[in-house]
């Protein structure tokens, strides 16, 4: 998929653990893992909004288009 999810990069920059992010997002660690590994079919706007708020970033920091 040409859309790459950079949640891991932002987590590292904010020195935050996946478990904590999942808790604050209100999703299961398994679902966060699906998102991080690029297996997700889509991201809801409210999830994206919460991610940006928690990680203090812009949607563009989390999602990147890489041509195949």
């Amino acid at each position, binding site marked *: 998929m040409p859309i790459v999810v950079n949640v891991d990069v932002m987590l590292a920059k904010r020195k935050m653990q996946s478990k904590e992010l999942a808790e604050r997002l209100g*999703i299961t660690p398994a*679902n*966060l893992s*699906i*998102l991080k590994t690029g*297996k*997700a*079919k*889509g*991201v*809801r706007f409210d*999830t994206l909004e919460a991610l940006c708020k928690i990680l203090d970033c812009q949607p563009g920091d989390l999602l990147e288009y890489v041509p195949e």
Partner: protein
Amino acid sequence: MKLVRLSSAILFYVARALALGYLAILAYLLASVALRLPSFQLLDKKRFVIYYPFTQTRFLLGSQYTAAYLTEMVLVLGVYGAFFWLLGQVFHTFKQPKLFTQAGIGRLRAFCLFNLVVPGLMLGLMQLLATGEDFPLGLVFMFHTVIGVFAFFIMSIFQQGVHLQNEQDLII
């Protein structure tokens, strides 16, 4: 969906009660005939009667005491016992909090196959036995075929539902 769950729960217990009723009658018939219990009595002209347990009130009346006639009785009771059991399983599916599941598809598949295959076999066997009993064979066959086809359509909807649900689970 609340109303569907409620009615499914009620219908589940009704179907289970009917299934258990048919199977209990079947077991009682077999036990009465095979063990020659006091509840079984031969009448004139090769007719027979099975009384309610411990009473002299007639429960089942047979017009011929022959293997073919008894086989037909066992067949009808067994098939309808199984039919109501599987129908109960279908209602059980509709009372679940999560509707579209592989288990639900399995229950619908069993019900669909049963209705499309078993009545045809039963009616074929009954034609062979030729006991002369007045039984609306054509109507019964048509009724089960229609139910079987509807169950097949519902099963296809469930398969689609499971697929969409799996897709939906990947939207975070």
